[in-house]
């Protein structure tokens, strides 16, 4: 089974964000980075499918600056077999521009499955996976939290608002992976050593046209500071009063 997993280098969300001088990007001074949360589930899914099939290949594809090779190495150390780095000075905010570059790379790869995270936690588009599926004219299932692949067919499950559904699809296909499917493994020392020798090709990203631009970013209005109104059961009458008269939600 030949599987590609698209992963994104994202900034650590625990940092205190500041807007850069241009007003339209983040000041990344001192920031840390990691593989996008949801992409970890996609990597784990790919490794398990490959191993269950008794062989094949998991290829990692990441578009980004040269530093994205750190995250690519991490994915290789988890057990992926090889990687392609599509080099770009910065990752555009328009998902379609990214999808066009990924599709160009993936088109002739003869992959049985192409996996994405459900969403990148920085740009939060949930768009690159479905867009690549469309550009490659492949079957698509988004937000997969259950998965079973038998031969050239798969069954997926996903959670909807107040319902869930079961979906059948033929391979090759594009899937975007939600939390809940698996628990991603941590790289071990052996994996980290092995990763150093695994093939990592770099080529320039053939980014598509940017049709949407981020013209500004801002910090949302702060919530008023928190307030402790009391202790234990004794605080309940005051809480009820505030919910009725101040918040007006009761």
């Amino acid at each position: 089974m030949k599987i590609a997993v698209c992963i994104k280098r994202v900034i650590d969300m625990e940092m205190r964000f500041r807007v850069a001088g241009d007003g339209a990007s983040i000041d990344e001074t001192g920031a840390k980075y990691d593989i996008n949360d949801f992409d970890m589930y996609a990597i784990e899914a790919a490794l398990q499918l490959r191993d269950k099939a008794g062989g094949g290949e998991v290829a990692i594809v990441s578009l980004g600056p040269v530093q994205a090779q750190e995250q690519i190495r991490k994915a290789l150390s988890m057990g992926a077999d090889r990687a392609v780095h599509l080099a770009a000075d910065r990752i555009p905010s328009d998902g379609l521009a990214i999808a066009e570059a990924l599709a160009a790379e993936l088109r002739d790869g003869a992959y049985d499955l192409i996996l994405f995270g459900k969403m990148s936690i920085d740009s939060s588009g949930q768009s690159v996976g479905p867009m690549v599926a469309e550009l490659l004219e492949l079957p698509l299932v988004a937000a997969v939290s259950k998965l079973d692949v038998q031969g050239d067919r798969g069954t997926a499950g996903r959670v909807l608002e107040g319902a869930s559904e079961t979906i059948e699809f033929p391979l090759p296909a594009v899937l975007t992976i939600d939390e809940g499917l698996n628990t991603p493994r941590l790289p071990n020392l052996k994996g980290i050593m092995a990763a150093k020798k695994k093939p990592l090709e770099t080529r320039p990203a053939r980014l598509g046209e940017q049709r949407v631009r981020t013209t500004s970013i801002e910090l949302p209005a702060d919530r008023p500071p928190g307030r402790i109104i009391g202790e234990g059961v004794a605080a309940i009458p005051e809480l009820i009063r505030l919910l009725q008269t101040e918040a007006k939600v009761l």
Partner: protein
Amino acid sequence: MPNVLVIAEARAGQLRKVALEAMTAGRALASEAGGEVHALVAGPPGTAGLAPQLGAHGADVVLVAEHAALENYNGEALTALIAERTRTGGYRVVIFSASVHGRELAPRVAARLRAAYASDVITVALEGGSLVARHPVNTGKLTATLTTSASPAVVSLRPGMFEASAHAAAGRVERIEPVGDPSASRVRVTATQQGSSAKLDLSEAPIIVSGGRGMKAAENFRIVEDLANALGRAAVGCTRAVSDDGWRPHSDQIGQTGRVVSPDLYIALGISGAVQHIAGMRTARTIVAVNKDREAPIFKFADYGIVGDVLEVVPALTAAVKEARKGH
């Protein structure tokens, strides 16, 4: 003509609340642009019965596609239908709901049309020749303003951010044919399991009562449920610690990798307030927290905090809420 196309999401023969929210947003955009709003609704035979409700929410024209193979969500057939209609109709903006289905469909349609796509937006407007939309990024710690002058522009709207309101319009029904054969789609939804209809979905509940590891055990969520019931129109959520332990289903998890919610009232019980949890509920209008640790980070966000043991405070709070809501 700068017309707007609204994709109205229906499930099990009913329009979803987000469909009416999208109608209202579409109406506002069309009024700015001086154009019409066309709603598109697809489903099994009988779907045309939803047209009057769309007319009552501002649809000048309701495009209805009926086919037996549109009973369940059919992404491939819908992509073909919507892309074709957008092309022939010359729409300026195509509006989806940023629901699970909408977020699969909208980017696929945008890619087919090579159109600009703004996802999960909380505001949208036409300013001069440009479409300007705001979208929460970086787990809601920042809001990005996206601008595009490309036409058509495809957007999906974050549920709960656009209030549905009535607006009488003609709602003239126009039947449209599926493009290709919907029963030939490669991807098929073979079963839909409806959650219990009594259970309000997290994205639609005005009140959410959420439990964390401080609830101590799965069975203690009974008192969380009791509080939700006493409040009426409330749903129960949880943290990842809780869904990881299997106390609650993963679909109830709120946060960075779970659901993002903006209820009027969010009650956090035994929840520490990790950044990844806050990411999913920071836009709640009022936040209440009960935690035995005065230093818990959740108290930095809670409008009203009570320091105490959830197992004592929650049953007493339920009783007080029942008393306060007597007569409801």
